[in-house]
């Protein structure tokens, strides 16, 4: 099932490149996504490819995987030139890819997903049987245990990722590309993934890790290539560089990796949540009796593995979901009872930056200026008895773009033409500019590049310093630890611990997130 390829070099000699890219060039209309990119990845190594969103990493890897065709340049695998025009060519050249958004058929079993495209014959019966035993062997060899008969869509994401890796190995991949593999994993799962990758490398496979997280590059790669604006700007052995140096190469200027902020001066309690319970459509409790308070002038972070009730919590606070129990007290009034809805929350001074920007934060087909007033469109400023005041809207958007450094500053441009970071800055501008006393932010920097992350964090801290309360939910522990004055940890719908921001460590939070109860501060 899986031929062991003999080592090409004598032991001790430098291993030759498994994959070479020479002068890859690619344009999408006016965008020059890859500018004559050359790259060599040694056999049996883990090679990091790092860069901001939009630096061209994904385009480059999609060219290698046959998803896009390069305008110019050539690809060599094990020293031999290959023509890659579609994924089939790439698979036949021994390249496998684990995409950022998993390519699984959710209603299929794991086994069906893995054999798709390599079924071993026109009839399924025999091929499935052979695949089953072959996968057992592969699983044992690489410590990749997956339940072959489970429905893929029901598996936790960490498991789905293993399915993707097994799928690539089943398709006989010798070179494995992983695109942002840790975006959906807990720190513990990420470590497990890294151990798996190290094992694959030690067995002679070549791994390319595409990421924007410096920590991962430092932790696992042998060499690293930095891309910026479509070009390779730096390449080095990982041991010869530092996170700071890499970050500067990525952004092209010095950046602050840590959030700079003065100690918080918390004032009076603004928002008090008591025993909040939220059930989903099926009646399953998602938030189970959460209690906490938000004070003026502080940032409270909510840490947790994605899907442990954080989304439901902020949706209840923002008025999107109606809580099934408990109370949300703001200025002596219980928001959980009586009138609900986002407009009601806005009138109480609660603003909300949703977790999923493209699903809830913006309307993808709208221009930037229309997106910049969403939810506030009925206000007198933008609206005169039902008619939109186009000029006021445009001027308002131009102002927001100037003060939040949104690039390009063109209010009439479609929102999807902006990068993730610039979209998020505009959403943040919209929610902050209406003068809320409480800001609820879900995943403030998801899909946002480093430069913009720094900016967004500064804005959130500035809001705190002006005496407002901020609740931040994020799956990025670094972000939670950097921003928060207090950290709440959610697991299984409950708040399982509270840690002062200054004392939090990744290990302590990780334990709480994994559901080990207790107060890590004591």
């Amino acid at each position, binding site marked *: 099932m899986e031929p062991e390829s003999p080592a090409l070099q004598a032991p001790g000699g430098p291993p030759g490149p498994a994959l070479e890219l020479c002068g890859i060039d690619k344009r999408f209309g006016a965008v020059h996504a890859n500018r004559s990119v050359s790259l060599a990845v040694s056999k049996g190594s883990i090679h990091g490819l790092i860069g901001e969103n939009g630096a061209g990493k994904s385009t480059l890897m999609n060219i290698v*995987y046959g*998803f*896009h065709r390069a305008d110019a340049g050539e690809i060599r695998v094990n020293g031999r030139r290959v023509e890659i025009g*579609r*994924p*089939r060519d*790439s*698979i*036949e050249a021994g390249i496998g*890819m684990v*995409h950022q958004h998993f*390519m*699984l*058929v*959710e*209603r*299929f079993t794991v086994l*069906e*997903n893995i*054999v*798709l*495209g*390599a*079924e071993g*014959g*026109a*009839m*399924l*019966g025999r*091929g499935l049987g052979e695949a089953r035993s072959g996968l057992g062997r592969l699983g044992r060899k690489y410590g990749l245990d997956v339940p072959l008969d489970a429905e893929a869509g029901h598996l936790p994401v960490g498991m789905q990722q293993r399915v993707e890796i097994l*799928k690539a190995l089943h*398709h006989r991949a010798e070179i494995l590309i992983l695109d942002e593999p840790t975006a959906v994993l807990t720190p513990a799962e990420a470590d497990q993934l890294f151990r798996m990758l190290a094992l694959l490398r030690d067995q002679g496979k070549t791994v390319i890790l595409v990421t924007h997280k410096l920590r991962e590059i430092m932790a696992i790669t042998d060499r690293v290539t930095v891309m910026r604006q479509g070009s390779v700007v730096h390449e080095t052995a990982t041991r010869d560089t530092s996170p700071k140096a890499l970050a500067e190469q990525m952004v092209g200027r010095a950046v602050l990796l840590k959030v700079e902020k003065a100690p918080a001066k918390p004032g009076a309690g603004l928002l008090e949540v008591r025993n909040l319970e939220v059930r989903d459509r099926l009646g399953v409790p998602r938030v189970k009796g959460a209690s906490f308070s938000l004070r003026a002038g502080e940032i409270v972070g909510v840490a947790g593995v994605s899907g442990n009730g954080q989304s439901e919590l902020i949706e209840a606070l923002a008025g999107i979901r109606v809580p099934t129990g408990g109370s949300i007290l703001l200025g002596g009034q219980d928001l959980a009872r009586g009138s609900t809805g986002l407009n009601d929350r806005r009138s109480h001074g609660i603003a909300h930056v949703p977790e999923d920007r493209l699903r809830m934060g913006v309307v993808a087909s709208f221009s930037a200026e229309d997106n910049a007033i969403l939810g506030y469109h009925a206000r007198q400023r933008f609206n005169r008895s039902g008619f939109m005041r186009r000029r006021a809207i445009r001027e308002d958007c131009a102002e927001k773009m100037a003060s939040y450094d949104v690039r390009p500053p063109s209010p009439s441009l479609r929102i999807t033409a902006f990068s993730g970071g610039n979209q998020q800055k505009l959403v943040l501008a919209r929610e902050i500019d209406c003068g809320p006393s409480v800001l609820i932010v879900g995943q403030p920097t998801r899909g946002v590049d480093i430069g913009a992350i720094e900016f967004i964090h500064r804005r959130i801290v500035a809001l705190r310093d002006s005496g407002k309360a901020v609740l931040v939910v994020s799956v990025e522990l670094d972000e939670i630890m950097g921003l928060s004055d207090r950290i709440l940890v959610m697991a299984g719908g409950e708040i399982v611990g509270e840690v002062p921001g200054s004392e939090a460590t990744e290990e302590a939070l990780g334990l709480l997130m994994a559901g080990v109860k207790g107060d890590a501060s004591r």
Partner: protein
Amino acid sequence: MEAYREIILILAATIRVATPLVLAAIAGLFSERSGVIDLGLEGKMLAAAFASAAVAAATGSAWLGLGAGVAASLALALVIAFACVTHRGNQVVAAMAVNIIVAGLAPALALAWFDQGGQTPQLDGPGQRFLGIAWPWAQAARRHPVPGLAYAELLSGHNLIVYFAAALVPASAWVLYRTRFGLRLRAVGENPLAVDTAGISVNLLRYQASIISGILCGVAGTYISTAASAGFVRDMTAGKGYLALAALIFGKWRPYPTLAACLLFAFADAGAARLQGVPLPGIGVVPVQLIIALPYILTVLLLAGFVGEAVAPKAIGVPYTKEK
């Protein structure tokens, strides 16, 4: 005994009515499982009904008629696929366009070629129609109503296309769940990106599915004009394509439940035909309009109330592009 006779006759009629529904619904199943909405069932069937009747009338051969019916339906299927798969057009619009064109074009061509008010000539010559095949001893069996009448009416006496439709359902289930093609077909309707990244052509699969749908609709249309009746008349598919689509949804895009839904609709239709003018105990004679509407009322009720959450193939109706 009279009630038994009546029931057997209704069931026999059910089989005859169900045949084009089953063929069309299975046609739709292949297409929709691949992710292409098959609203064009109606138009493809109507085109096949006209082409087969016209060719059978002209040549005197039902088999040549079948060939022509399949060819006409297949041509339309390829037109829709070219618009929707190759050029990523709107599947609903493309299919409805075909339906409307066929509804107008078929009677117009019939008028031009045969000059009989938009119909094709009566098919009454030998070999112009698909006729029932009597099984051995069917006539003799009628003398012993139980189970002889059931044998003679339900098993024996149907034409080839009915038996083809009956065999089609298990065959489709086998293709769908036991073969590589079936696996890929199911996958492409759920997540075409997964299929593409596994190195399989999304468009090729969707064309293959469209071709199967075209062929089966061709057979269904041929049945309507050359087996169930003796010639083409205007709008003779009478919404059967949409009814088949409803059965497909009711059957949750699975072969056997879809068959069951087709039989249910057909039973309502056959029963309604028999109920016309018959006084029912306690109700009296039901207005004929209501009886004719019964299968459609049933459809609406079933679809609205009893299907539960329809589990359509996830990517249905979405043209495939690599860009997100």
